[in-house]
């Protein structure tokens, strides 16, 4: 039985007999973002989940500040911080089972690390020693990569393939509010809905695409409202409420896993830092707005709940901080070592086997490097290793 047969093939009917192909009502998001923390529902939240989320968020925040500091020291080419968005990053990783797949956007290093990828390997792209530092198959995390929204169809294809193979695998794909404007967003959601692929799309609406505010990005009531146009449910959630995001994503993952098809989740959050360390946010927004959002900080929200319920003692809080500091210290130490690089790697993986043409170019580079090494050992050492520095 094919995918289409399962769902009953649509046959066009003239308007006298017309009816909507799916009921739109359940697909529409609620008018307000779903929240747990600060509401009565919070009382029912599992204490263990609250503690785990809290520890992971604190660790995540520390990772962000450490990585930003490393850019100042020249150890990273660039870092797009997710400070303020940690609830989304961590919840996305935690909502998945080990066998599932994560498709991050370029900003989602934190989700990648939360999924289990080595914190240093997750930074390879931004450090600049290679494009992807980790084996995507080890933790089932697609490569971090910058072309926006292009990872979304990949997630759909992978989830579809897994389903065709009979594997119980869900893909969670992340994208920013800006990325929703790209054609790839549209095509991915449409394919996912038509194929009923087990995918969850998480849009982090952090208010900006670099300098462009949401009002110049869309006129929609919410980004979650886009879902109905594909025939999938749209869910709106407070992106700074880790418990709420975790719940909404877990529901969507469960739905996908059960054959219910894809879901679009919009998490309303805010990019508290500049776009990257290279950006100057004062050019396009004022402090007041940032301040409003700092008062809705995802870690604060969690801590308030934990403290109110007496779930975070002095010792536990210290342990969380120490764990985060240890991670940061390790990251610093390892990032302060220069990576070992072999320029010949440039030719190693362009094809399964280099073409004759590439073999020629590889030989040229090898000859240059050998000549340079000779010149260096024979003459003054330390004149650099690039072609420019080595001739004479």
């Amino acid at each position, binding site marked *: 039985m094919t995918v*289409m047969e399962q769902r009953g093939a649509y046959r066009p009917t003239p308007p006298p007999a017309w009816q909507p192909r799916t009921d739109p009502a359940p697909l529409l998001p609620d008018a307000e973002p779903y929240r747990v923390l600060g509401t009565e529902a919070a009382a029912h939240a599992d204490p263990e989940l609250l503690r785990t989320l809290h520890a992971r968020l604190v660790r995540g925040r520390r990772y962000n500040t450490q990585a930003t500091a490393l850019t100042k020291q020249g150890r990273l080419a660039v870092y797009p911080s997710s400070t303020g968005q940690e609830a989304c990053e961590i919840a996305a990783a935690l909502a998945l089972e080990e066998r599932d797949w994560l498709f991050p956007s370029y900003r989602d290093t934190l989700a990648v690390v939360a999924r289990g990828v080595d914190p240093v390997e997750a930074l390879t792209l931004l450090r600049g020693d290679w*494009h992807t530092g980790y084996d995507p198959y080890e933790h089932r995390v697609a490569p971090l*990569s910058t072309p926006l929204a292009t990872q979304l169809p990949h997630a759909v294809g*992978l989830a579809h393939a897994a389903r065709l193979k009979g594997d119980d695998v869900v893909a969670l794909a992340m994208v920013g509010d800006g990325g929703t404007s790209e054609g790839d967003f549209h*095509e*991915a959601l449409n*394919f996912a809905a038509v194929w009923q692929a087990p995918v969850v799309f998480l849009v982090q609406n952090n208010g900006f695409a670099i300098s462009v505010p949401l009002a110049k990005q869309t006129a929609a009531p919410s980004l979650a409202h886009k879902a109905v146009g594909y025939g999938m449910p749209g869910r709106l959630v407070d992106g700074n409420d880790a418990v709420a995001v975790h719940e909404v994503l877990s529901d969507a993952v469960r739905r996908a896993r059960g054959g219910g098809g894809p879901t679009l989740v919009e998490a309303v959050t805010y990019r508290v830092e500049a776009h990257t360390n290279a950006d100057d946010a004062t050019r396009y927004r004022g402090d007041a707005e940032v301040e409003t959002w700092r008062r809705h900080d995802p870690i604060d929200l969690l801590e308030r709940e934990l403290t109110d319920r007496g779930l975070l003692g002095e010792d536990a809080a210290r342990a969380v901080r120490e764990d985060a500091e240890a991670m940061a210290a390790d990251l610093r130490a390892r990032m302060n070592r220069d990576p070992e690089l072999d320029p010949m*790697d440039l030719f190693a993986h362009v094809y399964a086997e280099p073409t004759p043409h590439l073999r020629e170019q590889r030989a040229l580079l090898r000859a240059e490097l050998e000549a340079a090494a000779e010149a260096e050992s024979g003459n003054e050492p330390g004149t650099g290793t690039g072609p420019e520095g080595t001739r004479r």
Partner: protein
Amino acid sequence: MTTVAAKPATMAQALTRALRDAMAADPAVHVLGEDVGALGGVFRVTDGLAKEFGEDRCTDTPLAEAGILGTAVGMAMYGLRPVVEMQFDAFAYPAFEQVVSHVTKMRNRTRGRMPLPLTIRVPYGGGIGGVEHHSDSSEAYYMATPGLHVVTPATVADAYGLLRASIASDDPVVFLEPKRLYWSKDAWNPEEPAPVEPVGRAVVRRSGRSATLITYGPSLAVCMEAAEAARAEGWDLEVVDLRSLVPFDDETVCASVRRTGRAVVVHESGSFGGPGGEIAARVTERCFHHLEAPVLRVAGFDIPYPPPMLERHHLPGVDRILDAVGRLQWEAES
């Protein structure tokens, strides 16, 4: 296996057979594209596949080329071997970002951990009276993108063999199918297809001593005809069919040019920034002292592909090829 005598088959039939055999041999092979299912594709190349292998193996997609290729990337990431059909050359452009930014970069990006064995079939070129946007030769774009193989058959047997090899390749392949050869026929035995070799070898289709015509795909037949006509002028032309633009078979091409000392590259694609520039440049780099004349190019003009009623003025024909051969400075020899 019973031996079936070779009888005429069209290139389209050979391609269908290649897809079918590849799907039968490897359950990871999935075909997807617009109208590839019940219709069998607008050129009927996927005819019967959905019926034989089911709609999950041969899938009609929504109408969105970036989505088709983008989901195929995801399928390949999960270990499938997708074969994507782009309906026409010009309708592959929406998928260009996926080609350049992911299809060709995934293996390298992940140091070989995540290869993308996928084949992108693109019917290409003119000569079929197609209206605007149905006759583009887009090989220059793909050639200039490292990480792809670019393959194009010129004969019925090669259509089968090269498509099988492309699907079997662990690298992504753009497989360019010359539209105007779809209905060309040749004696070919589907039960005993030539052994499937890896792509990358050009072949001498006609031996000659005076000059070499270097060509591929839709222009091979024109070159063979030109070579025949050239005998009247006293020229004995050799014809090389490249079969793949990437990998490029310098060995076969240069061996021929060193023998003849003269060469003309022939293709439909525009000449400016087209394949012929690369070919002429690399042949010249490698054979300079064997050349009696510069390597010339006979190509489509550098204009938007003409409307059907004018396309014959655009396409390289026998006369234009012979004119170019005539300019290969024959006096210099004597």
